[in-house]
């Protein structure tokens, strides 16, 4: 079923993009060199739980190569070099083409990409306002979030306010797990179909409201050994306000419901978080977050965590961040420290 739909999507894509390829040939001489940039992510975490602490180490280097192939097609490639237990593991984190206008108001993305699900999943860690990803994201979509190879179509609806509809078909990477239904590792794998509606309203000249709805159908981590069908639906609300000078406040709230059919069992879990951040000058930003999530196992436990963040922006691309977390269930505390540094003209699409 998925392969048929994917084939159809690919055919449509080739049909629409043929004139674009023709343009590529004629405009090649005007193409500039791509932008090269590098983001380094050093972090460490120390906590009172039995979970081992992590020293302050360089955890990831992200190398980005970005540029336009022609006026309508942009290529973005993000290579990541992860430090996993002392070994550097390179992989293509994202590599995709963006077709700006296949037709009026219709765009497309093709390649490997983080799924545009909710507010945080498609962002890279250097774009987050926090060190640790929201619990609901890592518990419901996987430790690294949901990503896959495939494509999506996005369309800006003809409304007086900004509303974008995105539909995608992806093949998520397999997840290595123990063959036991009670494992805590969870992620989205196999063929995934996903949709997102993202709207925005300018409340005043200085404030903006964004509302999003996302959904995906896929398979859970145990799909290789038994039935493991998963659907996740989420909603996200973002409020941003800007004051004179550099003052800015931002609020992210996201909630998700996960339905899972695991063997003969069916169950639903929910989770969410709310974050508030305030930047009081060009350099300093404070934030606080509350997370609540139910684990995606047969026997669910609740996790509730409070955390607070303090960020110092050294330059446009370099920041130092400290994060304190407190688990209301286990009463464990954790302290995280992060240094993100950037070289070159790194950029991400508006999310």
């Amino acid at each position: 079923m998925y392969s048929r739909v994917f084939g159809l999507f690919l055919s449509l894509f080739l049909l629409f993009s043929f004139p674009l390829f023709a343009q590529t040939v004629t405009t090649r001489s005007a193409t500039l060199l791509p932008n090269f940039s590098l983001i380094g992510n050093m972090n460490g975490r120390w906590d009172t739980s039995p979970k081992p602490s992590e020293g302050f180490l360089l955890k990831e280097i992200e190398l980005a190569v970005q540029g336009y192939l022609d006026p309508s097609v942009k290529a973005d490639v993000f290579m990541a070099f992860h430090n996993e237990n002392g070994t550097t593991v390179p992989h293509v984190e994202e590599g995709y083409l963006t077709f700006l206008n296949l037709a009026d108001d219709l765009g497309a993305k093709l390649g490997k990409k983080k799924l545009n699900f909710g507010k945080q999943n498609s962002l890279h860690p250097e774009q987050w306002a926090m060190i640790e990803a929201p619990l609901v994201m890592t518990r419901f979509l996987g430790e690294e979030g949901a990503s896959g190879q495939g494509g999506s179509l996005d369309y800006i609806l003809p409304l007086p306010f900004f509303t974008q509809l995105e539909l995608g078909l992806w093949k998520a990477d397999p997840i290595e797990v123990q063959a036991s239904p009670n494992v805590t590792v969870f992620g989205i794998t196999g063929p995934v179909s996903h949709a997102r509606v993202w709207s925005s309203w300018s409340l005043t000249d200085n404030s903006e409201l964004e509302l999003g709805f996302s959904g995906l159908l896929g398979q859970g981590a145990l799909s290789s050994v038994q039935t493991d069908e998963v659907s996740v639906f989420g909603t996200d609300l973002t409020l941003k306000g800007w004051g004179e000078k550099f003052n800015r406040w931002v609020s992210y709230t996201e909630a998700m419901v996960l339905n899972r059919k695991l063997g003969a069992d069916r169950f639903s879990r929910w989770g969410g978080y709310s974050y508030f951040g305030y930047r009081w000058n060009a350099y300093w930003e404070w934030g606080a977050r509350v997370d609540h999530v139910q684990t995606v196992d047969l026997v669910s436990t609740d996790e509730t965590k409070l955390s607070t963040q303090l960020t110092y922006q050294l330059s446009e691309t370099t920041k130092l961040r400290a994060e304190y977390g407190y688990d209301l269930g286990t009463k464990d505390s954790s302290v995280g420290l992060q240094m993100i540094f950037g070289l070159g003209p790194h950029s991400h699409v508006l999310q």
Partner: protein
Amino acid sequence: MKKLVIALLFCVSFGTSLWAQSKLNVVAVTPDLADITREVGGEYVRVGVLMQGWQDPHHVDPKPSMVMQLRQADLLIRIGMDLDSWVDSLIQTSRQSRFVNADSVLNASLGFPKLDIPQGAIDGRSGDIHLYGNPHYWLDPENVGVIALNVAQKLGQRMPQHADYFLAKAQKYKATVEQKADFWKREIKPFKPVLVVTYHQTWPYFAKAFGLQVVAQMEPKPGIPPSPKYLIELEKKMKQMNVKIIIVEPWQNIDWAKQLGQRTGAEVLVLAPSVGAIQGVNSYLSLIDFNLSYLKKGLQHVQ
């Protein structure tokens, strides 16, 4: 009756489409560029603006609502020189590849010499420096005259039937701006030499236009906050050179500037780097009047 309704519908739809075609939708990145475009385009353009004058153009968060402004625009007028690179993400989200193409974009930074162009390889050691030179070029009224002519040419390409109208408006506006600048140059002349310290490197074009000598910045490097040690050294330098004017952008830390002013006896002037940066500065002409009249008062005060 049926024929009458059809005829009416045809007239309304034809009339609406003619009305829509009669005006060109232009979006300018800054209020300064928007104001110049309004002056040049007159009755034939509808001008929107992406950022507010009180925002530091180096630190603008692109918003989805800006995407809607772009989608409705026939022409985008950019600051250029990498100062508005945040607009790129809006263009990508808007799906309007015409803004990747030069036909529907005017880079307002073209056509006049740039200042502070870095030499050799640059990196973070130079602070948040701009590869193509200092991008605050609109603070020199002479450059605004060139921008007005470039806007007229671009509008004329899009609406050839009104090309002469745009050119005439641009020439008239250029003359008005130059006249105003000449008036203020004469007003400032008796105070020369005018030595100033500025918070950020926003003012070299302004200084060149009106004959000010920028001795130093409060930032040791562009975008890098001053350390106490650096401010002590700057204080000594200001006293040695008898610098009595500190120019600050409204979004910078004015308290630090005031403390430096108290220690050196210098007047702190919060000037408008953009239209809308300060209440009452609603046009480029009023920006010149505000900045220069305030500067003159400051100079009179410290004499």
